[in-house]
């Protein structure tokens, strides 16, 4: 099993969700985060007081998938989240040791 973590631009959420559903990924966790990479922030001005805001709003999507579709999931997220503009985000894949569905007690692949 793999945990696929993707940091994407917020407005891309729907596209990414639809693309993942199409390949059989049935659940995900989404958090609102702030971050930066090569994309710089912006400047806000309040009555003459300037603030450079380095952190930009992003979304962090986490999905747990069987190892055999991890690559497909990464590919599908990439194509749906890409705009070609700086700040599109990144994807990280890490192994999962154990998984469990709380309601039924199913474990590992049965829990995904």
């Amino acid at each position, binding site marked *: 099993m793999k945990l696929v973590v993707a940091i994407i631009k917020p407005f891309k959420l729907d596209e990414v969700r639809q693309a993942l559903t199409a390949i059989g990924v049935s659940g995900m966790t989404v958090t609102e985060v702030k971050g930066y990479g090569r994309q710089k922030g912006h400047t806000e*001005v*309040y*009555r*003459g007081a300037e603030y450079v*805001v380095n952190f930009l709003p992003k979304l962090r999507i986490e999905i747990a998938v069987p190892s055999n579709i991890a690559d497909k999931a990464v590919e599908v997220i990439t194509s749906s989240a890409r705009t070609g503009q700086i700040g599109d985000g990144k994807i990280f894949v890490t192994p999962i040791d154990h998984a469990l569905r709380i309601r039924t007690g199913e474990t590992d692949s049965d829990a995904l």
Partner: protein
Amino acid sequence: MGALSYRAAKLAAPISLATVFSFATPAFAETSGISAADTAWMIVATALVLMMTIPGLALFYSGMVRKKNVLATMAQSLAAVAIISILWVAFGYSLAFVGDGPWLGTLDRWFLAGMTMDGVNPAAKTIPESLFMLYQMTFAIITVALVAGSVADRMRFSAYLLFSIGWFMFVYVPLAHWVWGGGFLGSMGVLDFAGGLVVHLSAGVGGLVAAKVMGRRHGYGSENLSPFDLSLAVMGTGLLWVGWFGFNGGSALGANSRAVMAIIATHLAACAGALTWGAIEWTIRRKPSVLGMISGAVAGLGTITPASGFVAPWHGIVIGVIAGLVCFWACTWLKHRFNYDDSLDVFGVHGIGGMTGILLAGVFATASIGGTSGLIEGNPQQLLIQLYGIAVTLVWSGGMTYVLLKLVSAFVPLRVSREHELEGLDISQHGEALQ
């Protein structure tokens, strides 16, 4: 039928009692002089001005501070309402508006002693004295609440309460008496229709002195101190704007065309101020900000305040434009040039705006509107009188504010500790937090 007659019987007793009492108590015929129309309008105006403080100013200020200080900032407005109302009734009204000594009134109306149902205050003969007292109370409240904006994010709540009580007693009450209550400034002809000196300049200078005495916020100039939620500030502005119809319109103390003229001038000044500040930002920074537009509107409103009942309605547009320009300059260039942390620009908007408005009242005063001529009608003398009023207010408010701050600091520190400032006033002063 049985149930119906039971219900009717239950009503019979109170109905007959009410009938007895309505014959027993004399009906109050309208006393000669008191106008029902004026009274009705002034009741509404009173409510409008109270609304300007809660929730108008509370929202306006709180939206502009950081999240960790939002509740504490609102608490300052709430506390101002609660405390100043009682002090006003206790002695503030009496010392400000009863008796016409040049320096101070009398304590004849201590806790409203001697106030009758049909009595009037000579300053407002067509409305009950009680209503005049209540209306003026709302002015005292908002003036005190305004001052705290300069030292937002860092004043200890206990110090704020003590300071506010002292500031009310020693700055607001005397000034109100001097300008409106029969004191020396009013007698010499200073034109201040609704509070350019008494409210805006005095609060602005008080705020500036407080900002200087208490020092800059931790992180000023280096950290991001951006507003928590400007939508709160916009809503506050709306309540202030509409409430100002009562603030300036009600200062006519009657339901008449002078009130309407004042309201028109007020409204136009707000519009012109908003557009001007927005236009300046659009030109200089390529984008008109919402904060800029609401700041411009409030600048226009504060500046027109002393002039509103003395000038022609269209003068409101000119005064609003000037307000937008002058206050923008004060909140950006002036503040940074002298490096004081007037957190919410009380001096930049209300102080400078009030001062400008007092001068412009001396320029644009039109005899057919308010009975006095200004510069444009060939009376340059009025400008000198206005300047004198400004000077007195600057010295008195500035000086007394300094003395009061030093006095309060002998009992409690004015600022919260550095840890508490970093943690936030909501948690440290009130034990609460926005989620």
